[in-house]
């Protein structure tokens, strides 16, 4: 649009010019419509982005369990970068180079870390002139066609009173499993992933790379019920999204205080290098849902910056939680009586006689009693269903922490039996039987999953089943779960959806 007329005089073109220019921009709208000072902003000051993504430094989930196929070892899985779209090129998903990805272990219950595994990453670009992630089919991790690669180092710190007593480098330059670009680029992704499983010297094993997001829940249910139309199905769930995963398997006796005190408390953090050159903790995660559902909005950022030994500051959020009151106000499900010492046990101290260490200091950690043997038939509700090898005794990949947490928050442990849940009871992909256990990432060539109409294991089908109105042919288990909740099932789903939306949104800080 060059609104200068060639043959007109300068002046005659002027009106056209002005009108044209203003019309083209909607700037006029500002002037006329707002009648407010300064509305027509100019460029004299820097206007930085208001909405910035920071997924690389965002802990999404933490899992810790006694390895089912190697019961003398403990596996920790920590995830970052939520909502990875398969085929998210051109750069795909990488661990940040300016971050320290830390796994903390408190083995005496004092709320302080005794061991710290630190993962730091480096990115390597073979052909710096190319923006391409890979330049041909990738057959192995050192394939020259894999243009962008990452490696990582692992350090182990032994701490006392939060001071480093001893520091060892466990490994250098271990290759990271790449993002799964698709079949054409990576015809045998499983092989690449196997190559990224790395034996450490002390009978430990580590893995870092992309994986299917093991977290399972239905975010869409939220809207659908609000919309009051159960036959309308959504297509936006965690299914089909990947995460970046760090998995570590260590001999259990390396991390416990002693065979007499087998309970460890675990949490993960991300520290980011700031402009002044120091590292600041920007994300923290132990138990699922604590920061999301237990802490009110104003404390979420503070929680992310804080450490378990200071968690007394959040005690009130646990003893007098917001969520059940909110649920009561909206859905008339009575909130259990306060103070909620049952929640303090689950979220801050561990359950007595199960995973509460002696002399425990209340602190938000994922507490695992490593002496409880893994079971061949894990139950998704874990301890609530009598399966003590599962959540909240640690957390297995298959544990349905949404349902379990919700039931606990709504008073399952203090006499308010309920069956609240989200009708999604397991991950869409099966987990592996051996380390690193997480499922292979969904590959890029599957197409745009968020649109949700892919063939095969279609999101829509599954959801449709789960949500069919009573009487329609649906998945029996799911329906009975919903129906069995004494009229509160639907509300349960709604609020779980709400909490989850809240959770994931906070996590991403996407507002």
């Amino acid at each position, binding site marked *: 649009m060059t609104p200068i007329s060639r043959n007109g005089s300068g002046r005659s073109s002027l*009106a*056209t010019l002005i009108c*044209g220019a*203003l019309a*083209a921009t909607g700037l006029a709208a500002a002037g006329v419509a707002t009648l407010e000072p300064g509305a027509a902003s100019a460029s004299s000051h*820097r206007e930085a982005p208001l909405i910035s993504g920071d997924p690389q430094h965002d802990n999404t989930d933490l899992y810790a369990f006694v390895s089912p196929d190697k019961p003398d070892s403990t596996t920790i899985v920590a995830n970052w970068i939520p909502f990875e779209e398969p085929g998210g090129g051109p750069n795909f998903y990488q661990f940040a180079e300016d971050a320290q990805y830390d796994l903390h272990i408190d083995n005496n219950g004092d709320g302080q870390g005794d061991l710290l595994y630190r993962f730091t990453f480096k990115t390597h670009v073979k052909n710096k002139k190319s923006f391409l992630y890979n330049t041909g089919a990738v057959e192995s991790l050192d394939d020259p066609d894999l243009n962008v690669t990452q490696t990582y180092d692992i350090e182990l710190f032994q701490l006392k009173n939060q001071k480093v007593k001893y520091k060892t480098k466990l490994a250098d330059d271990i290759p990271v499993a790449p993002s799964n670009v698709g079949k054409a680029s990576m015809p045998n992704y499983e092989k690449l992933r196997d190559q990224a499983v790395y034996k450490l010297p002390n009978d430990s094993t580590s893995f870092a790379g992309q994986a299917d997001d093991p977290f399972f829940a239905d975010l869409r249910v939220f809207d659908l019920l609000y919309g009051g139309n159960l036959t309308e199905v959504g297509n936006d769930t965690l299914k089909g999204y990947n995460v970046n995963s760090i998995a570590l398997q260590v001999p259990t006796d390396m991390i416990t205080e002693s065979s007499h005190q087998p309970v460890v408390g675990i949490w993960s953090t991300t520290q980011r290098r700031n*402009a002044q050159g120091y590292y600041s903790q*920007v994300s923290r995660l132990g138990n699922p849902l604590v920061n999301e559902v237990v802490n009110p909005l104003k404390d979420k950022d503070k929680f992310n910056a804080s450490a378990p030994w200071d968690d007394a500051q959040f005690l009130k959020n646990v003893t007098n939680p917001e969520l059940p009151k909110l649920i009561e106000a909206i859905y008339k499900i009575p909130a259990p009586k306060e103070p909620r010492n049952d929640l303090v046990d689950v979220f801050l101290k561990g359950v007595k006689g199960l995973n509460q260490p002696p002399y425990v200091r209340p602190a938000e950690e994922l507490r695992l009693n490593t002496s409880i043997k893994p079971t061949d038939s894990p139950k998704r509700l874990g301890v609530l269903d009598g399966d003590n090898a599962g959540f909240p005794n640690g957390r297995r990949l298959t544990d349905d922490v949404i349902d379990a947490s919700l039931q606990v928050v709504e008073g399952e442990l203090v006499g308010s039996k309920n069956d609240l849940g989200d009708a999604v009871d397991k991950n869409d992909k099966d987990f592996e039987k051996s380390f690193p256990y997480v499922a292979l990432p969904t590959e890029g060539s599957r197409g745009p999953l968020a649109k949700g109409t892919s063939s095969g294991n279609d999101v829509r089908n599954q959801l449709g089943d789960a949500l069919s109105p009573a009487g329609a042919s649906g998945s029996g288990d799911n329906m009975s779960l919903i129906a069995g909740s004494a009229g509160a099932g639907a509300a349960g789903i709604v609020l779980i959806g709400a909490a989850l939306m809240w959770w994931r949104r906070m996590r991403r800080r*996407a507002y």
Partner: protein
Amino acid sequence: MSGSTTDSAPENEHDGSSETAEPSAQGAEEKVTAVRRVSEAGRRWRAAQLAGCAALLAVALTGGSIAIGALRDGGTATVASSSSSAVSPGLMASGDLDAGIRALQAHLRGQPKDFGSWATLGLAYVEQARTKGDPSRYPQAQQALKKSLELKADNEQGLAGLAALAAARHDFKDALAYADRVLKQNPYSERALSSRIDALVELGRYDEASKAADLADERRPGIPVFTRYAYVHELRGDVRTARTVLEQALSTATTPGDIAYVATALGQLAWNQGDYDTALTDYARALAADDAYLPALEGRARAQAANGDRAAAIKGMEAVVARYPLPGPLVGLGELYEDRGADGDEAKAKDQYALVDAWTALARANGVNADLDTALAAADHGDKASALRAARAEWARRHTVHTADALAWALHVNGRDKEALPYARQATATGYRNASFLYHRGIIELAAGDRKEGRSHLGSALKLNPGFSPLGAREARKALKEASK
């Protein structure tokens, strides 16, 4: 209407615009006559008349879109298929702001009590205004934020949104107050920490801004804080730190919006130091992420001009002005025409300057405070007296290096060099390496009789960034030569 800034807006808004576009095209013909008639009646009157034209046009164009209001512009047809998408969590940060806004609008139709999403929507509108140069989003933003705070008083997201909105409207005192209110609740709020730095910078409270930047950096390192941190350092002349931090920010930027913004900031920094090749590389990086990012397009045109590629610069700046006729780019383009000096260029340049006048008049006619850029543009190419009025008004509001420079220059063009001198010195006192400030100071010093200082500052300006402005640089060289005789 190819330049419509609401390209992503749903059907009914498009319809609204195209319906109103026709009468305005007809109106344009009438206005041509009006302008002809008025042109004989002197400059002031002409500006007023033009403003009238623009205002009428504006009413015609935008009555619809304003009436439609915040929610409606999401349209109803567009969302049916995409579900009542509950603000798909990744959306807002994933870079597709328009899709995010549509999703939020759809979500809020079903969930009108979701105060968090109202705040998000308000903020998204502010962001859209920023990236598209479309301030008509501000009232919509205000409505959404107001709604959020009605639903939940003093909620953090709503207040943080208001801080961002106030800053976008250059109401920095309010922005600071809102940011402080948020920080009282949540000392780690990234947005409030960032807004606080912005406000202090724009109020000229640089020491406090620097402390605020350090604190924000300790609490929430990340792109929003890094870019502010860099600017605070640049303002003090610490270009090296600014560049390092921006490069750090760029290396972790993942969304197109972030990449475009940070790379553009790097380009501007390089351009300010006269490093045009680096600037062009940075702008190319920004445009690779978002090829419609206006600040990068403008910056690239300026760097091309400084590098001697005037044809490309003019083409680029014409494209910017066609979409975003703000005083800065208009003056830039006008000066490029003048500098080229081909047949008809003078008239074209005058058109641009007149458009600045029209824009200013339009803004004033509607109670909008003329901005700094307006004062500078008017000082060089418009009504000198009004330039001084604007500069004084802005100086009364805030004492920054930019307002000091504008006031100094406005005083100078009105022949009040002795008065101008202290302001010109103040503009360069922080060490901010800005060739235009140095040029203004040098010229004012020469005019006030201080040849030595004047020569020195003109020399510094030309050494720092010899292509800072096609006409300014020419003037600077001429004045330096004469002063050295």
